[in-house]
């Protein structure tokens, strides 16, 4: 379960909006730049690391001049560009079953079809696989398959699960020791670059700046109307920080621009940007758990903004790092702070922790309720979601609803069914608001 699409939403064009959405253009350029670097890595003499979004050690990879390739992001990009279906079919042809995580199959299918990236250019084979294990067991199996395919060096950072709901000093020490004794030596070996902790400190300093602005942007949804959609818009906002840009000045600049745009939206009391322009009236404020469906992303989003539903907070925008609860990368404690980052990713939090977080979001953002989009092929995170739903309902007294779709398998998005449930849910919220006066006689 992970995140961050590349191409920012092209809002309905008007000269004014193009200026307003400078951050979108910036992000689009950044992502295109990274694919460019990937495509030219061999000719530029650059080495490539593949890694995951949760527990993404981008600053560390940059210390070794490694280009960061994120298979999940490739899967998402292919999903949004309607290419994932055929890649999944390719993987299934080679024996991967229907129930396997569709990120995995989209990635394997892409490799089987010659590793042509979402932008149509080749993605080079990785020189190293860096697996930060943060709560998703499938990730481990996925990289096992990739190791088999690419026969390259593979290093695993084992991040202990926060089963007790908190990180301990032991856990942190364990991760730091792995970084020192396993991860850094492997990265040095593959890249031929000597580790320089001051370089890491510099990157982490940039990260913290960007994180500060990201949190400000996410928390802007506490306004009424919310100037952002923290789910459909949110997946764009987390793009740079969750992927190959955390720690870069470009990311810092992106979040500075974005924050400026949101400041303006708040001043003008504007709702969130949607693919069809600004959302006009805010009727429902929701907290969402679970990733969006990527293959029908626009259709899915439309079902919300057409009804005046805005997502004010989402857990999915925390899978690549939870910053709004206070964590920042700390240049004074570089390796320890990378350890804390990995431990705190949403994917590494236990069920009670997730429930507490959602409850807090519902209260802090004055939401009308919780919506769970449960992912058919994601066994790790779908398990327990109904329990989360019931408990959040009980604690907040707010209605919750449950829909099901998939990440990047277009076969598992049933538009009519989802629309039916969403509209029922919105009407349910309305009905609850009406309370006893609207009740049957």
């Amino acid at each position, binding site marked *: 379960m992970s995140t961050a699409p590349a191409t920012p939403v092209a809002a309905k064009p008007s000269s004014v909006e193009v200026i307003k959405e400078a951050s979108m253009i910036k992000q689009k350029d950044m992502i295109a730049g990274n694919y460019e670097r990937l495509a030219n890595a061999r000719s530029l003499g650059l080495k490539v690391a593949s890694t995951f979004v949760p527990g993404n050690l981008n600053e560390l990879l940059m210390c070794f001049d490694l280009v960061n390739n994120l298979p999940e992001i490739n899967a998402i990009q292919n999903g949004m560009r309607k290419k994932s279906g055929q890649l999944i079919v390719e993987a299934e042809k080679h024996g991967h079953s229907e129930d396997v995580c569709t990120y995995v199959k989209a990635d394997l299918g892409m490799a089987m079809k010659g590793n042509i990236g979402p932008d149509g250019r080749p993605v080079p084979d990785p020189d190293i696989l860096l697996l930060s294990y943060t709560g998703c067991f499938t990730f481990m199996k996925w990289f096992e398959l990739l190791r088999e395919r690419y026969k390259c060096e593979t290093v695993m950072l084992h991040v202990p699960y926060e089963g007790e709901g908190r990180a301990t000093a032991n856990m942190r020490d364990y991760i730091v020791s792995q970084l020192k004794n396993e991860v850094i030596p492997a990265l040095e070996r593959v890249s031929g670059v000597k580790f320089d902790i001051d370089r890491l400190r510099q990157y982490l300093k940039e990260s913290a700046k960007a994180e500060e602005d990201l949190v400000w942007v996410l928390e802007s949804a506490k306004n009424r109307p919310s100037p952002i959609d923290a789910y459909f818009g949110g997946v764009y906002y987390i793009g740079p920080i969750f992927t190959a840009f955390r720690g870069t000045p470009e990311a810092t600049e992106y979040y500075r621009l974005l924050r400026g745009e949101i400041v303006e939206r708040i001043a003008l009391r504007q709702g969130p940007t949607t693919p069809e322009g600004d959302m006009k009236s805010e009727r429902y404020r929701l907290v969402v758990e679970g990733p969006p469906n990527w293959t029908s992303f626009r259709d899915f989003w439309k079902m919300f903004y057409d009804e005046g539903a805005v997502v004010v907070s989402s857990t999915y925008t925390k899978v690549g790092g939870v910053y709004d609860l206070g964590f920042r990368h700390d240049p004074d404690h570089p390796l320890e702070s990378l350890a804390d980052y990995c431990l705190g990713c949403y994917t590494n939090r236990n069920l009670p922790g997730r429930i507490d977080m959602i409850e807090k979001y519902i209260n802090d953002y004055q939401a009308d309720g919780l919506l769970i989009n449960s992912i058919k092929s994601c066994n790790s995170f779908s398990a327990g979601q109904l329990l989360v739903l019931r408990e959040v*309902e009980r604690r907040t007294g707010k*209605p*919750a609803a449950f829909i099901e779709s998939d990440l990047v398998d277009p076969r598992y998005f049933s538009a009519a*069914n989802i629309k*039916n*449930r969403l509209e*029922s849910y919105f009407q349910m919220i309305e009905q609850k608001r009406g309370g*006893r006066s609207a009740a*049957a006689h």
Partner: protein
Amino acid sequence: MRTFIGIDLGSTTTKAVMMDENMNVIGRGITNSRSNYTIASRVAKNEAMVNARFAMFRDSLGKLAGIAGILESFMADLEREFRLGNFLENLAELERLCIENIAGSRAAGRDSAMREAVESVFDRLRGEAPSLFAPGAKRKSDFFRDIAGSRFMAVAEEIGKSSGLGYDSLLGLYDKSIIEVEGRPPSEDIGGGFRQALDRVLAGNAALNLPAADVARAVRDAMDVPLEETYLVGTGYGRVTLPFSKEHIRSEILCHGLGAHIMYPGTRTVLDIGGQDTKAIQVDDRGIVESFQMNDRCAAGCGRYLGYIADEMNIGLHELGPMAMQATRTVRINSTCTVFAGAELRDRLALGEKREDIMAGLHRAIILRAMSILSRSGGVRDQFTFTGGVAKNEAAVRELRKLVQENYGDMAININPESIYTGALGAAAFSRRSVEH
């Protein structure tokens, strides 16, 4: 009179409920959903209107002294005559279209022979029509398409063979024409047909000796009161394409929840098994939905599952339940997938299992699937109201009672004979409220 309409457009049938200002149900109507949702809604609404007029006539007539003993049979005769009149009218239209469609059909070139064959078929259908509506006659369905279709096929097979024109060419004409008949908007002139039916009943029952002036007054009471459609709310499976504007649409979940609450105010959990979906809904003491779950993507375990099994077994849908009730044991059916269950059914038959026992297993399978959806919605709470077409199936109800008892203990299980109208009832209540608020 101001009326408030609720329409539930289901995958199989479309239902309408008409309410007065005090939220009393004054009429109910049902029709097959056909390919044209707009027409289906209008037909169902029209049926509800007919039902309301009949009820008004009955109320008025019931005030006559000395009629109490014969009122029920008189009304039953009147309704049968009215239905027969409608049937014959539709049949004439079907015949006209069949003849019109000969040109351009596979039978083109043999027009006069085809015309003769079609006329023979319809002569037979007209001739036997009164027996279909005779007192005590059992019809598998009340929908024109079903009644006319099954008889057309039987007669056309015979005539197609004897005329040498073949069954297929006649069937082709029927298939094309029935769609056109069903696509016609219903006649809103209820009065004409009603009066004719009344004349026939009175003529055939001279012994009734009802004072003409009183009957005429009752007719006026029933027909001359304008039933003004104040507001209409639609709901149903095809909600995306419902022929109503957005502000007239309510979620079927909310409508079923509210409808069940109106029928049984103690309801806390509702299970609705319809043709293509199964819904489990939790409501509060005001009928407000607290949570819900539905089948996802796949219609396994819904009403269509039973329809498919009936087709596999070559029996009528309504025969499944009674057959399952004869079981002496329950064969375990592993699959709730409709297609797989069909294969399992054939396997079991081949192994020599009794049809009744297999049927019991299939009914259990459908209810097991519903139990899973129920538990995901928050379980079964007292009182539990079961609605939808499958609630009419006694074997499904038996399995449900058993599984609810096993999993949740004793509780009141409500099944209303009019449960098929639950969604439309809720929609009508929303319709009433829309004006109120």
